[in-house]
């Protein structure tokens, strides 16, 4: 290996140094723990908080669905849908309109339930493949390990539709044989070295929020598979106020990172919708995008430096500069590598002072088309607020039924709005209008000025301000929808989201054609109930936008719903590419979109990726079969 120790940076006056002892993680059943074996002598650690998500994730999180165990949509005794728990604004509230909405839009019937299997008994969980010499040597390092079947099961999947469906109805053919929790960069280096030595497969596991089947184990893998859970590598190592950078371990999850930075008056501003659970390393590995990228940038804009442990050694740059010309950027090899070449262990990110003013807003447009044209104009004038999203009419309606009261669509929307706007809005067709949700950040003055400008542009497209409440609810929707899918699962519905990026001139056509295609394919496949199809423009750029779809249908009468779903989503992807759209804006390729990669980057593009993989990982240790990797690729 080239170099192993390159951790500490000289201390700078403005660098905050908090040298603290590391709390030993709680010893727990089959979980062995030990402090990072390497001495922490010159390691500067900013905090001591344990990670929000424990090693035994299943104790806090659902094993067969999204999010926290305590939070879910369920039918209460009055037969109304209620959101349980205390974590969210929606928690504890009853949504009287939701049940009927589900009945009428996707034909759900309360009499036809499809509850999940209660558990997957240990007997049904495949026996682990054991590489005894590897395990023996690994134990000596003192790194926490577990071969508990629930621990292994939990790390065998992300949140792709077919994965969750499999958890509810069946079992994976292949799951990891061992889970390991490295607690620092050097632990990772050791594990990788041993894996190379003993020919063991490693699949890095961050937050497990993947929606591309990227965490799934290839069924044909005969070697031992180790799931490398990075969650214990959650420390902020230093923060540099002069350079506005922070150096963090790759396993930290979004909510912890932002919370702890906020305590110091900073933020990264990177907020993917999965930020409660997804990890920094995961973001880098998937080229993630956060909703406030207009101000803070996507992960590629935020990344200043990264340490990447590969089978050949550690890959990193020797300086931490804003930009450099040194050939093709190796960061771009690491970003989007989807766990195929190595592990992201430490990352230096840009940070910003917390904005003093944060304000939601919304704009109502008479139609989706008006909305898209307006967003394009705003993007073109480069005056987009931190976030601007445009929901189509179906999503607007959906947002309204999540309200805790029973008023009609439009009246509930109008609550609390100025009289002047109310009259105007009444002229809109509630079945056509579209709503943009906005989030402004900055100083009070900046926010005020930007608001003025945005609403002025909107007016040119017939857009009318719709109030802060409606805006905020729009963002809430994106957090709860993942929970809602679990409820839908209980009633014969399969649903999933997918996204793309597209140049402005094709944006509207793409939205319309994908919807048409989905409807058509459902019809052709004999799906008896109307599918639920909705989209929103979630990101804007100078040259185009990101479009995000939700698609679900009631599968009563269909014997193989997941297969049908995947076939139809495949058609939708074909349609997107035909419409000038991309294979993915931020979810990535994983396993489920491999078939379109060649078309996207060409033979030479795929060849180049393969060549890099072959150089970096000749033994195919990172054998998760994602991205450019050929199926059944040789060792």
């Amino acid at each position: 290996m080239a170099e192993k120790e390159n951790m500490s940076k000289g201390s700078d006056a403005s660098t905050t140094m908090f040298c603290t002892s590391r709390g030993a993680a709680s010893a727990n059943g089959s979980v062995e723990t030990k402090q990072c074996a390497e001495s922490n002598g010159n390691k500067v650690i900013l905090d001591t908080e344990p990670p929000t998500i424990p090693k035994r994730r299943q104790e806090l999180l659902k094993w067969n669905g999204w999010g926290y165990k305590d939070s879910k949509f369920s039918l209460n005794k009055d037969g109304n849908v209620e959101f349980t728990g205390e974590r969210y604004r929606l928690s504890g509230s009853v949504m009287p309109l939701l049940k009927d909405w589900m009945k009428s839009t996707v034909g759900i019937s309360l009499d036809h339930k499809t509850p999940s299997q209660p558990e997957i008994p240990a007997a049904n969980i495949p026996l682990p493949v054991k590489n005894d010499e590897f395990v023996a040597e690994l134990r000596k390092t003192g790194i926490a390990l577990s071969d508990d079947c629930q621990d292994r099961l939990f790390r065998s999947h992300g949140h792709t539709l077919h994965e969750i469906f499999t958890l509810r109805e069946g079992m994976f053919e292949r799951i990891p044989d061992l889970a390991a929790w490295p607690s620092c960069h050097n632990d990772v280096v050791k594990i990788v070295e041993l894996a190379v030595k003993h020919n063991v497969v490693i699949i890095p596991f961050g937050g497990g929020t993947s929606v591309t089947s990227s965490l799934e184990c290839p069924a044909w893998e005969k070697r031992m598979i180790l799931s490398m859970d990075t969650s214990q590598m959650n420390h902020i190592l230093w923060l540099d106020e002069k350079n506005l950078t922070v150096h963090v371990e790759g396993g930290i999850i979004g909510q912890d990172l932002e919370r702890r930075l906020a305590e110091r008056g900073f933020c990264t501003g990177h907020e993917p919708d999965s930020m409660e659970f997804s990890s920094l390393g995961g973001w880098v590995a998937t080229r993630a995008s956060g909703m406030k990228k207009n101000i803070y940038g996507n992960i590629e804009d935020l990344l200043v430096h990264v340490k990447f442990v590969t089978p050949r050694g550690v890959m990193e740059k020797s300086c931490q500069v804003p930009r450099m010309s040194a050939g093709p950027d190796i960061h771009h090899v690491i970003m989007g590598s989807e766990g195929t070449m190595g592990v992201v262990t430490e990352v230096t990110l840009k940070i910003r002072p917390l904005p003093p003013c944060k304000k939601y807003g919304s704009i109502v447009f008479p139609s989706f088309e008006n909305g898209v044209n307006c967003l394009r104009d705003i993007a073109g004038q480069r005056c987009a607020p931190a976030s601007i999203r445009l929901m189509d009419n179906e999503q607007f309606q959906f947002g309204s039924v999540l309200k805790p009261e029973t008023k009609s669509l439009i009246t509930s929307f109008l609550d609390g709005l100025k009289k002047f706007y109310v009259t105007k809005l009444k002229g809109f067709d509630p079945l056509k209008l579209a709503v943009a949700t906005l989030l402004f950040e900055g100083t009070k003055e900046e926010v005020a000025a930007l608001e003025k400008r945005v609403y002025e542009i909107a007016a040119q497209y017939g857009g009318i301000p719709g109030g802060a409440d409606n805006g905020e609810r729009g963002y809430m929707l994106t957090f709860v929808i993942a929970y809602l899918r679990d409820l839908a699962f209980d009633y014969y519905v399969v649903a999933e989201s997918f996204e793309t990026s597209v140049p402005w001139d094709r944006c509207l056509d793409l939205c319309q054609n994908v919807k048409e295609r989905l409807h058509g394919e459902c019809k052709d496949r004999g799906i008896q109930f109307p599918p639920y199809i909705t989209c929103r423009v979630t990101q804007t750029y100078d040259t185009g936008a990101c479009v995000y779809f939700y698609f679900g249908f009631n599968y009563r009468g269909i014997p193989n719903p997941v297969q049908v779903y995947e076939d139809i989503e495949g058609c939708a992807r074909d349609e997107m590419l035909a419409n000038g759209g991309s294979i993915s804006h931020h979810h990535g390729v994983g396993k489920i979109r491999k078939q379109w990669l060649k078309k996207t980057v060409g033979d030479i593009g795929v060849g180049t990726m393969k060549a890099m993989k072959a150089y970096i990982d000749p033994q195919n240790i990172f054998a998760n079969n994602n991205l450019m990797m050929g199926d059944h690729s040789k060792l």
Partner: protein
Amino acid sequence: MSEQSRNAWITKDDPKLVSSKHKDNFEDILEDRRHNSDLRYCSRTRDVPSFRLNKKRTPQQVKEHVLKSDRVQYAVEQVCVETQLPRTEVLTQAASIVDEMAHNLRLGAVRGFAYFLMKVLKQLYQRIYVNEEGVEKVRSLIQDYPVLIMPTHRSYMDFLLMSYVFYHYDLPLPVIAAAMDFMGMKFFGWLLRNCGAFYIRRSFGEDSLYWAVFTEYVQTQICNGDTPIEFYVEGTRSRTSKSYTPKFGMLSAALEPYFKSQVSDIMVIPVSISYDRVLEESLYAYELLGVPKPKESTSGLLKARKILEEDFGNIHITFGEPVSIRKFSDGKVDRSMHSLAPRYIVSLTQEEQSLIRTLGYHMVLVHQHNMVISPWSMVAAVLMQSQQGVTVRSLVHEVDWVKRLASNLGAYIDWPVNESAEAIIRHSLALHPNIVSVGSDDVVTLLQVSPPVAHGRSAQQQQIQQFAVMQNAAQHIMLSLYRNQAIHVFLRPAMVSLAINSCKEEELSLDLLYQKYVFLENVLCRDFVFIPGNTRKDFEHTLATLAHIGVVVVEAGAVVVKKSTNKTTAFLSHMFEPFLLGYWLMCQFLLSSRMQVAAKPLARTQKTLTREMQVLAARLIQEETIRHFEILSLDMANNCLHALFHMGGISKEKRDGVTYMYPNVAKLSTITEQLGTYTAVPPLPAVSINLNTKTVTVNAKL
């Protein structure tokens, strides 16, 4: 129990009863109109379906959109650069092109027109049959997809009929791509425009501004699904009642929005319109012979009032199975090819173009398949082969035989079950009193047709009328038009038959048979429609069909020639004799003139060639060397030249922008020789023709 007979639920116990309004899956849409108020019918409220994603626009807004579109703006910019004209001027040009082109579809006009049209239709026709099921499919498709209506084109009536049918069934009126000729007609041109006609120049190859306006005009209406768009894939009215080979300009423009992903699918609906009797029959005959047709004019139409007193029988309109362009092109094209440049600039890929060509051919074949063949068409086929006159009795016998053959070959024949064959045939004969008469001896003979009154006698015409033969030719040509209505049914089997009949051996290997088939397809590819690349499949299918119906006997990989030369193969071969003879003569004619220039055969324009060929043909008919009047057809001569060019028998070159043709002697000689093996060719003296002196010199020595 006893009174509950087996037939208790039958009101009229007559197995032969045929409802006059409903026949098979057709419904007569005139029936009700004959019993109810026309006025009320035309003023009733129409509840028409519309495209789900349509945004309502007026014709005026469509025009405005076109001028503002990226495509037209881009073209304007290009033209400014090329011509150095000021932008405003080019914009004005663009605006005037739109004005010239655009329809102004208005319900008011349509109602008025429907009223008038209905009166005319009731006068002219006995029944207009429409397959309801097909219409209902259109109704539901219109809501989900942009729709292209693609009817056959055999008559001016097509266009009026289609609009009428759509009006009748409460469907949105289509807008129709029409040729400029109509526009010149004062009142009528205006009326049609208000009923949805939009006008397209016949050729505008190089005019990029026109092209941009046209493309955008068509495409915006497709993308927004404003109304169904109707156009003729054959490009123009078939004067021969045969299908014309498809044209691709309009089809490409109309389908481009799918390939550029502006819409998620487009439905193409083939419509076959079959006439018992075509309004323009005699006009066509003269046109094919080279008498220029009178320019369309309103007064001309009014003069046609005489026509109103005649009976034109029935019309059958069949809405065929809709073709989804998405499904048709699935796996064959990659639409993302257009992702790398603005959609108004990039053009269609090779694959897309060839797919569109295949679709064009496919649609024509579907048209043919869905044609309703009238008994008269088969009468015509028999009469063509028995020019000496035939008794009704033997005509009935023969036609009945042909009918069976045709239905074995997959034709749908309009043959009422409740009538005797004789009654049907007598009825057919009676419907065409201008072509045939039945003498007191019950012998059917052809009538002479008088040429239409010509405006000013051109030298051309005098030339033609020199030969009395032309007088007689017209009714033969007319008869051939009706035989042509069914000729596609017999085409491929006839090609196999011709090949078998040409064989002098005991056995004909399938390989050799196929070679001959390929040759015939090449020769016939202009007069008839073949899907390019489908030859092998066509051949195999045809051979299998013929074997199954016992016409051709195949043993051990070869055709047993003797057992396969029979009445059927003879009949089929004879049907195509005029074509082969006509081609052969054209070849001989081209070869005979090779001596005229020393180094290189003399090059002449297509027009000269066909005219001279016609003069020669007329001469040979006059001398009774050849009996088939059809060889006088300029259409056949033109098709022959195209086919020969396609086969390498002749070459083209451009001189001063005009295309000249000259034979490639070696190749052409082989073709000629081969042609001679398929049909009995007369001994032919070498000839030279001089159009100016209107003389044919037969050089018997050569």
